């Protein structure tokens, strides 16, 4: 996919240092440090209870940090005036059910300080953007969950905010809606907005984000460009007739490991796969399957998150058999 060049201004959109939040005895955030640049789509990932929504609430000033500091669009966390330039779609999206869709958007336009003459056109632009232009005059209470989420996305994008914070933006959408949202998010970033995308859907993050941070137990466990977090490409070969003594002969492709009948060469450039296969065949090995590529974000996520956790249970008698 060809991406437009990013608009990066000097000040980052989000910059937090050692942010901590305690709820009673529980550390919801245990020292979060991260930076999100202007014009970038930043994926914020983590299992349930990792501290994702808490982070969003601290960024918006809906909750106060126990310690640590942060800036959003150059202003201290919770600064009222800065919220004019932030759009937010909450995880629990709910809007006045007695209002019409356009009225919800003009209300938010008024709350964010848009000039009276700008409110209606801005509302109509946002409705158009999220595919609700033909439902502008309908009562929100009669909307499906997916339409309400589209409306929430519309309020988050209203008036071209400099920072868009989306908390699970596609949780209620069908596959078509998800594709639409990816396009909308990219378009917002291409206009220069920073997008902070809080999501469980790793494939969505993989397809749309420039950078990601993976958070667990209130801490960032990995962050950076998608390439850096996913790691390098590897080749996995299911093979028989190969022993540890044969490994030095294939080291020229990359560092090999052999576990049972699975040979893994990591890192390894995909271009070397035909030569590796020829080498193995010439050594008398019998090849069942060859896979090559990067680990998916899902695999990487599971690896990182599983590292901190105790095993799910002791092996049962069945598994030992």
């Amino acid at each position, binding site marked *: 996919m060809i991406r437009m060049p990013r608009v990066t201004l000097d000040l980052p959109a989000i910059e937090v240092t050692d942010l901590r939040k305690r*709820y009673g005895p529980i550390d919801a955030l245990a020292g979060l440090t991260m930076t999100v640049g202007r014009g970038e789509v930043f994926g914020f990932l983590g299992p349930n209870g990792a501290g994702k929504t808490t982070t969003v*609430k601290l960024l*918006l*000033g*809906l*909750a*106060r940090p126990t310690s640590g500091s942060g800036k959003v669009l150059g202003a201290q966390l919770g600064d*009222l*005036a*800065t*919220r*004019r330039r*932030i759009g*937010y779609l*909450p995880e*629990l*999206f*709910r*809007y*006045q059910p*007695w*209002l019409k869709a356009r009225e919800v958007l003009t*209300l*938010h336009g*008024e*709350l*964010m*300080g848009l000039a009276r003459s700008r409110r209606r056109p801005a509302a109509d632009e946002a409705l158009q953007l999220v595919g609700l232009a033909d439902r502008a005059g309908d009562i929100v209470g009669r909307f499906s969950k997916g339409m309400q989420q589209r409306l*929430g996305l519309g*309020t988050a994008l209203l008036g071209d905010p400099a920072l868009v914070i989306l908390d699970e933006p596609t949780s209620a959408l069908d596959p078509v809606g998800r594709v639409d949202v990816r396009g909308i998010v990219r378009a917002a970033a291409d206009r220069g907005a920073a997008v902070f995308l809080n999501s469980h859907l790793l494939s969505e993050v993989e397809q749309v984000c420039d950078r990601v941070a993976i958070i667990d137990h209130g801490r960032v466990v990995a962050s950076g460009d998608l390439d850096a977090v996913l790691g390098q490409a590897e080749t996995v070969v299911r093979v028989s007739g190969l022993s540890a003594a044969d490994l030095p002969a294939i080291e020229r492709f990359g560092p090999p490991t052999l576990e049972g009948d699975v040979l893994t060469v990591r890192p390894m450039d995909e271009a070397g796969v035909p030569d590796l296969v020829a080498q193995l065949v010439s050594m008398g090995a019998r090849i069942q399957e060859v896979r090559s590529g990067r680990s998916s974000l899902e695999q990487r996520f599971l690896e990182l998150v599983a590292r901190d956790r105790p095993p799910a249970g002791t092996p049962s008698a069945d598994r030992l058999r």
Partner: protein
Amino acid sequence: MLTIAKLTIGEAARRRVLWVLVILAALAVSLTAWGVASLLDGARDRGLSDLEIKFAVSQVLILIAFMFGFVLVMTAAFFGSPAIATELENGIAQAMLARPLRRSSYLLGRWLGLSTVIVVYAAVSGLLAIGVVGVVSGYVPPDPILPVAYLAGQALVLLSLTVLLSTRLSPIAGGAIAVVAYGLAWIAGVLGKIGLALDSPSLVNVSDASRFLLPTDALWQGVVYGLEPSFVINAAEGEFVARTSPFFAASGPSPAILAWSVIWVALVLALGVAQLRRREL
């Protein structure tokens, strides 16, 4: 703040709350007119004097005001107790408070919107009831606006209390606490009157303390005083039974208690704002 107040009034209109109130008020006024007309027929058949009839009508009016005041206070509790709590629970408030909207503007806007609905409802139905009774019976209280204002004041006191409770408690809990507090304040007012008649300082103290904590009963005395014809006040002045009745008042609320009622509402709202500011959303 005005944005939220307008939104709140719009909500009452769209959710048909206003129409339900208008229909109920129309029913209540019609029933009052019919009741007073029947009372007059019966009284004239029995040959009661005009003074006696005037007394009877004023008493009926006070009883109607008591019922209407109770309905108004319950309406205020129903409006106020979910005002903040429900929008925080379902997330409507969070979406708005992530905008450059102060929490104080949000809370005061909700209060102002609901207050407007309650005051308009009280004024229209209260004055209409007094007017209809005036047309049917010829009796109009000395200053008809004053009792209606006190009725609305009572409701605003309770609305403020429920809005405060709504920043921390569920709608059911907040509403229940407010209605029980209102009932207790009313009973404390009755005890205070008995205390005055019996010269019992402790009963009077209980009543004074209760008015300090929740000034609704003081305002109720204003309603009663405002609906009484002056000859009733003069005649009942020394009577023990009259002096202890919650449906008789020898004088209206003092300027001091009126000032306190205004300060009380301001303090309760300030406390509500402080609670909401402290709350983690």
